[in-house]
């Protein structure tokens, strides 16, 4: 449906739904011609399942994947619960893309440090796979990713095999506590970042995770002498319209849906910390 009303969704079909963890599933959807729109890594879209409603999610697939869109979704409320219960073949509503996305142009030539926690890897994954697909444009890539337990890590094939095997790319995994099946690093993401002692020269850090993790990651990066414009994060807020009118997701005069969700720490420091 091509509507002049930006709130009207188009129709997509659920192609695949896969459990990542006990709480997180990845949904792959497509319209008749594949991915229903072009987008930039870090942008979001509104998935809708009447009569339960709509919710905004970051697109976790890379824009280079044109046959479908992927969303990694943690069960948290009524819409996500209903989405988790779906089977392939189900038709859904979708509208977007929304937001600014990651600054893929200004990141060119930089070393990149991705820091993710739990479901926070979802938006980062779009950018990671974009950078790997355009490998020559970007410098060394480090990925620090952690979760509460080994069972809570998402995108296992990528974090364990594909990304570590990619050229000039290193992956550092950690979990919050000891588990019998886990032989890797144990500890919180922020302290692992400090321990790994990344240098700020020509590097940009991109982070997403639970608010408490982000708070301490920002502190760790500051101690490692990253400047506020070298740190990028992507925010999550409650949204209804996605186009800067319904009034929910503002930080001061900026709307996360339209002016964000991606902000540098330098930008965030000028805005009320209501996130």
């Amino acid at each position: 449906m091509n509507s002049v009303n930006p709130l009207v969704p188009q129709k997509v079909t659920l192609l695949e739904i896969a459990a990542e963890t006990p709480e997180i599933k990845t949904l792959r959807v497509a319209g008749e011609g594949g991915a229903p729109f072009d987008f930039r890594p870090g942008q979001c879209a509104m998935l809708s399942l009447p009569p339960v409603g709509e919710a905004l999610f970051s697109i976790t697939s890379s824009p280079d994947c044109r046959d479908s869109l992927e969303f990694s979704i943690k069960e948290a409320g009524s819409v996500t619960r209903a989405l988790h219960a779906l089977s392939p073949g189900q038709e859904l509503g979708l509208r977007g893309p929304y937001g600014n996305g990651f600054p893929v142009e200004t990141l060119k030539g930089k070393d990149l440090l991705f820091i993710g926690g739990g479901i926070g890897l979802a938006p980062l994954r779009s950018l990671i796979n974009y950078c790997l697909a355009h490998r020559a444009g970007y410098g060394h890539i480090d990925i620090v990713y952690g979760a509460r337990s080994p069972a809570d890590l998402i995108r296992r094939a990528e974090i364990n095999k594909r990304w570590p095997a990619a050229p000039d790319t290193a992956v550092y995994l950690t979990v919050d506590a000891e588990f019998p099946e886990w032989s890797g690093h144990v500890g919180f993401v922020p302290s692992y970042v400090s321990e790994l002692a990344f240098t700020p020269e020509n590097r940009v850090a991109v982070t997403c995770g639970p608010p408490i993790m982000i708070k301490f990651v920002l502190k760790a990066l500051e101690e490692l002498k990253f400047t506020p414009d070298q740190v990028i994060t992507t925010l999550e807020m409650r949204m209804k319209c996605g186009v800067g009118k319904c009034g929910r997701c503002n930080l001061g005069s900026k709307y996360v849906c339209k002016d964000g969700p991606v902000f540098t720490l330098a930008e965030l420091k000028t805005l009320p910390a209501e996130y």
Partner: protein
Amino acid sequence: MIKSINKAGLDRLWERLAAAGPLYLPVKEGPAVLFRPWAEGAAAALDVTQATVSPKEIFFPRDETYLKFRREGEKLALAESGTPAGPAIAFGLRSCDLRAVELLDLVFRGQEPADALYGRRRENTMLVALACGQPDPSCFCGAFGINPADAPGADVMAWWDGDVLVMEARTARGEALFAAAGELLQESAAGSKPLAPATAEFGLPLEDLPERLKSRFYDPAWDRLYRGCLACGGCTYFCPTCHCFDVQDYGSQERGERFRCWDSCMFGRFTLMAGGHNPRPTQKERVRNRFLHKLQYFPENFGRFACVGCGRCLRSCPVNLDIVQAIRALGGETVEQR
């Protein structure tokens, strides 16, 4: 072009104008005066200073269905729905109402993507402004440079000259109203002018206010100011520039509709996220956000205050926590400066 009509002939004028589409007029409904489509026998309350609920609801209704769905197993059918917005007339808006429409335009039409639901109503509705002769004691439109006797943006400007309603067409659309009214309107002798009303302003410190508020986000004045707030949402309901809305689905698994409706940033669940996190967790953050939106954020985005001094929040707040209080508490000296 200036024409006029005697008060006694207005019912025939309403009947004539309403034949072509909805004619919204301020009418008494219980204890309130509301803009409602004229129907035979309805008495227009043109003498009332202000409608209780602002006429923003003509363009941005309290609730509005825009999508119908049907689900059958895996299949989902989505169809746009809603009442088509044909030509309409809004008659009797005050200067403050017109300014509010101008401000809503900035949000709904002035930035991409334009809001189609608002836009089609706005484009198809002729605006007839009525000069305000007697501001209410709670009016302060003068503070925002609004002249109660002149409403820029109106297709027709009207004013009372005794028992005669004088109308000046200012746009082609306004002249079309004169053509539709035909012989019901008389040629008017030049010279009639709307009465210059008493200036309504409270001597508010608005100069450079958006700039000065930048340093007041953490001001202790907010701790005192918000305390009485009952989170009733009355201020946002009556405010002519408040535009927050919710989107909800209604229906069964098989069929239903999606609508949007007015919402309020004063409500605790407005920003509550599914996971339980709330970025504006107490009434203090909500009250602060509402006033800063009107006085700092909107000016930063659009260069205008999002307040028209209509006084509806002064009249509706059960605890006298209104925008005048906020401007006085935050607009002057900082605590440190005192």
